Structure formats: structure tokens, C-alpha cells
């Protein structure tokens, strides 16, 4: 009897340790490969970033990044399940391995970067708080805003930023405060305020959902600095590198002019930077457990950063978003990636 109890205890302990062992020792790359697909999470659905069509297919900026990582790992962008995750459980799902990465979470802050066993690999989208106004106001700059009502979320940094901005500009305004983002849209549409101030990513999604979207404009100024980017769990530097260099590949490809359309015609290119990106020179993927043509597979599948941006936020959406800070560093923006060398 006593022996049986001991045996049972032993088996349980062994099973537990094996689980721990695989959780720690098995690399994310091995797990993803064994599973045959990538599990890619993101914050709540948001038009432009992640939306589901009638057939249950997801598309958007976040989804394209997930597809890029799948292309890097499998050579096929379709081997991915996209999981939009609401609420605050995203970090726990990342830590327990329920998702392999978060394509988009909340803005990059020190707390989120260091406190939850996860890290940002880099910035994929420069955000920031801005203003949305009706075109009939005839303003082209936030510095022209004066004597109007501004809808803004109460109780956080956003209302403080608005107060700072108008105080520094010595402009008059009144606050129309709400606790939920959805209320901002309703109030603005009902004419309870003349402008909405929130993060540009959210203003953009809001604008896109308006029936007369073209009648509204997001002003170019940013009154706060916010950025977001893909996150991975701590403890697996190989996976950190894979996700980071997927992002960098998208940016570098735009910089050297390699697109999904022209990539097949570049096999005879002489420019070393292009040849390296296509895997024609060097053996860059091996150290990360990837094939030498992983960058080519990424670009072929989803295009470069500019193509992804245009597909999801460009003129073809009917609601174009300016590149702004999300333009390349060579074109007045902040997007930058170390070179493929």
C-alpha cells in the first residue's frame, strides 16, 4: 500500500518535471514546428489592424505580421492561427505558451517590457495621441484648434496630455469626458464634441467605421509618444531573434526596394544588400534555425513593410492613413532596422 502511494507520487512528480522540462527546454521554434503552425495573438480586433470577414478569415496589419513570421518559419504564410485576445490575460497566454507571440499589444512601456516575463522585439508601429475633427472645421493642424469641445477619455494620461497641449498653446477648449472609448464615437457622431483626442491607431479605426469617413481628418500632430511592436516571452533568445529579424527584414526590404512583386525578377541583382536579403549571399538564417532564404520567403508572402502598410492603411482601403513617423528613416520617418550583413 505504502509502495503504491510512493510510486504514484513518483509518477506524478516525474510527469510534472517533464512538463516543466519541455516548457523550459523545448525551444519555441521546435514547438511551433512540431505543431505545424504558429499561434499568433494580438490585442482586440481593430479595423486596419485586425478584422474578420464573413468567411471567418482574419486580415490586417497584425495578421500580416503573423503571416510574415509563419513564412520565416515554414516558408508558408498560411501556417498560422490568428487569435485576437481581449482583456488583460494576454501576457499570461504568452507566458504559458497558449500563443507564440503577440503581434500587437498595448503601447511599449517600461512596465510592460520588464514586468510580465515578456519583451518587445522592436517597434512596428509608431502611434501617439492625436486629434480627429470634421473637415468642415477647416483646420489642417492641431495648433489651429481653439474654442471647441474635445471628447477624451477620463482618468488617464490622455486627458492630461490634452490639458498640457491646450495650456501650452494658450488655446481655449472644453472637455467632454467619457470612461469608454465607444462613448467617444457616439458622442462625436451625435455632435456633442467637435474633436476626439485618442491614440492615432484608435482614431484611425474609429474614422474607418464612420459612415462618412472621408469627411473626417486626423490632424498630423502627435501630443504623446507611443509605439508598439511584437512581443515574445522571456527565456528564448532564438525566438526573440526570429521575430525581431522578421520585423527588420520587412523594413530593410522596403529600404532596398525589394517587393513581393519584383522579388522573383531580382535573382540576378548585383547590389549586395539585395543579394543578402534574397539569400543569394551569406548564410544568415542558420544561426536562428531558419533556412537561408527565410527573408525571401517573408517578402514573397507578405511584401515589405511599405506594402503591408499600404494594403491595410493605404488608399485602397478608402481611408488612407499618412505614413508619418511610420515612414522609413530615409524618408522623414522613424522606421529603422539594422542591416542584413
Amino acid at each position, binding site marked *: 500500500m505504502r509502495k503504491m502511494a*510512493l510510486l504514484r*507520487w*513518483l509518477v506524478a*512528480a*516525474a510527469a510534472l*518535471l*517533464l512538463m*516543466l*522540462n519541455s516548457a*523550459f*527546454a523545448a525551444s519555441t521554434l521546435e514547438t511551433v514546428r512540431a505543431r505545424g503552425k504558429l499561434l499568433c495573438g494580438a490585442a482586440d480586433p481593430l479595423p486596419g489592424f485586425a478584422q474578420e470577414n464573413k468567411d471567418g478569415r482574419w486580415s490586417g496589419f497584425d495578421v500580416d505580421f503573423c503571416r510574415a513570421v509563419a513564412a520565416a518559419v515554414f516558408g508558408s504564410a498560411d501556417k498560422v492561427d490568428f487569435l485576437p485576445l481581449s482583456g488583460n490575460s494576454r501576457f499570461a497566454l504568452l507566458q504559458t505558451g497558449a500563443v507564440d507571440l503577440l503581434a500587437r499589444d498595448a*503601447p*511599449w*512601456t*517600461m*512596465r510592460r*517590457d*520588464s*514586468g510580465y516575463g515578456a*519583451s*518587445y522585439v522592436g*517597434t512596428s508601429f509608431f502611434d501617439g495621441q492625436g486629434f480627429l475633427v470634421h473637415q468642415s472645421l477647416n483646420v489642417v493642424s492641431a495648433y489651429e484648434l481653439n474654442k471647441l469641445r474635445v471628447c477624451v477619455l477620463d482618468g488617464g*494620461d490622455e486627458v*492630461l496630455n490634452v490639458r498640457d497641449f491646450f495650456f501650452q498653446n494658450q488655446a481655449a477648449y472644453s472637455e467632454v469626458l467619457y470612461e469608454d472609448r465607444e462613448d467617444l464615437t457616439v458622442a462625436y457622431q451625435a455632435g456633442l464634441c467637435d474633436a476626439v483626442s485618442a491614440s492615432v491607431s484608435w482614431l484611425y479605426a474609429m474614422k474607418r467605421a464612420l459612415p462618412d469617413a472621408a469627411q473626417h481628418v486626423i490632424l498630423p500632430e502627435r501630443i504623446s*509618444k507611443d*509605439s508598439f511592436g511584437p512581443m515574445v516571452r*522571456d*527565456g528564448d*533568445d532564438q525566438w*526573440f*531573434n526570429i521575430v*525581431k*529579424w522578421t520585423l*527588420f527584414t520587412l523594413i530593410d526590404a522596403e529600404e532596398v526596394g525589394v517587393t513581393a512583386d519584383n522579388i522573383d525578377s531580382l535573382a540576378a541583382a548585383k*547590389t*549586395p544588400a539585395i543579394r543578402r536579403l534574397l539569400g543569394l549571399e*551569406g548564410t*544568415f538564417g542558420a*544561426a*536562428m534555425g531558419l533556412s537561408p532564404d527565410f527573408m525571401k520567403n517573408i517578402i514573397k508572402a507578405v511584401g515589405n513593410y511599405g506594402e503591408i502598410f499600404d494594403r491595410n492603411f493605404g488608399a485602397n482601403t478608402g481611408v488612407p492613413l499618412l505614413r508619418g*513617423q511610420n515612414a522609413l*528613416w530615409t524618408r522623414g520617418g*522613424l522606421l*529603422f532596422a*539594422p*542591416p*542584413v*550583413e
Partner: protein
Amino acid sequence: MSAKVWILMLLALLLPPAAAARADTLASVKQRGVVTCGVSEQSAGFAALGSNGQWSGLGIDYCRALAAVVFNDPTKISVDILTPDIRIGALTNDRVDVLADLMPWTLSNDTEHGVKFVGTLFYDGEGFLVGKAAALRSARDLSDKQVCVSTDSTAQADAAEYFDANNIKAHLLPFPTQAATLGAYVAGNCIALTADLSALVGLRATLPTPNDHVLLPDVITKQPRGIVVRQGDDRWFDVTRWTLYGLLDAEELGVTQSNVDEMLGSDNISVRRLLGVEGDFGAAIGLNKDWAYQLIKGVGNYADLFDRDLGEQSPLKLPRGLNALWSRGGIQYSPPVR
């Protein structure tokens, strides 16, 4: 053998080896009492030993910043001079805690050696040094002129590609070493010398009359240079990453070495968070909540460092260029302490 021993043996076998050997650089740094930084031999503006026996330079100042964050004392550093061939080994073998020799951040450096780039401390790139008397305004003016270049780097190939792509008919005059290249430039064999900006500022400083030479505005390659740590230690990565971001955030918020005490009374919420007056953002990575106050008090913000080591306050007079903050025409950017 008793059942207990069996169980223990089984446990030992099953324990994940990675967990057993998990590195904790912050703990060993604290125990040792100094941060050990790997730097290259004499590199003006980045790591240079002065005649007074004092180290100076951007890499050294970053190390002091780390020491200020960990020990509240920027002097608690130990400098280890490493040649390029042994620097990565010195890091992966625990001889140094951090590489501050401004290694180029590239795909191969980032992924092939078991190390990890913390971020970009200095955006470098290939530029051109010319005599003021030549009255050249841009790289375009180098057509039909001789340009000296050393063959011990990719500078020659990159310049050739740039001239070709931009239809500039300059003639590259190659030399086997940087010293020989400089000698030819001084002798007047070429009108310009091309190399990375980080090298050019040092070379210019060795000329008899540095002020007679200027950098052309063109920077023809991108060469981010960064701080490097070992893989496998996420907390140390966070400490080193946020030390860099702390320097940049402080500049953006206007917190300097000279006003930091005054700024403790600021009512700007971002300043209060940075300085640890509001919230505690250090605890999660093993630091005190006033880590950034200690950082700025100890060494200053990024602009303080740049000006002192490379910019206006230094003999090198390098313009900020890409190393200006994102809000001032450059691309230095950091997430906020929040």
C-alpha cells in the same frame, strides 16, 4: 537504495539544465561591486584613456551610466580592453558584463554568437572628411577627384557602390591600413578621406590643424552601433536596455545632470515617473525606484553624454545628425518609463 534517494536522483535527472545554469549578471555585478565593460583600444570619442589616466568616451559613459543605475555610483566600473577578435568570447565567457566597444549591429553579429544587442547607442555610417580649403559642399562635388580609403573594411566597396549608383565619377585610392590612408590624405594625394564617421572624427583630431577639415553632410551607409550583452539573461538585458532608454527619455523630458534635483519637484507626470517620484518602475528588474534619478545625477542624459564625448563640448565637434532625438530631426527614440 532507499526510495528517497531514488526520487532525488530522478529529480536531478529531470531538472532542466538551463534553469540550473541560468545566469544572473545583475546579482554577480552587485556581489563584485563593479560593472566590467569591454571596450576597444583607443577610440577617440568612444573609449579613450587620457594622459590623466581617466577613461572617456561614449562607451565608457554608458558603462558609468550602468554603474550609476546599479550602485548609485558611476565610478564603480572596471574597464577591460579587448581586441575585436576576442571581444565576443570575453562576453560569452563572463569576463565582461557588457560590451561597450560600439560593435556594429548587423544580422550576423546579432544572431550568430550567442549575444544580444540592447539598442543603438550611436548611429554611425560612412562619411567623407575634406579640407575646408577645397570648398566642397557635398559628395556630388567629389566627381573627378581622388578619395582615399582603407581596404581593411567594407568602406571601399560601399563607396564604389554609392558613387556608381549616384553617377559620381570619383576615383578611389585604396591603402592597406587606416594609418596609411590618413598619411596619403595628409600628403595631399587625395582631396577626401572616406570611413565611418566614428573613425573620421578620431582621425581628424590627430591632424595638425583639425579645424581646417570638415565632414561632408553625406552619410552613405547605415551602421547602427550598440551595447551588447549575453543571451540567456533577460533581467540584465532589461537593465541595460532601460539604462539606454533612461538616457534618451531624460533628454526628451529636459532632465539634465545639472537640473535633476530641481526636477524632483516637477509636476510633469512623465518626469515624476522617470525620477521615481511617482510609481516604482525599477523593482521589476531588480533596481531601486530612483534608478533613473541616479543615472542622470551620475552621468547626465544622452545629450550630456554626446556633447561631452563627441559633440560641441568635445574636441571632435561631431554634429548630432541621426543621433538627435526623434523630436528634433534625428531617429533616437525610446519608449517611456511608465
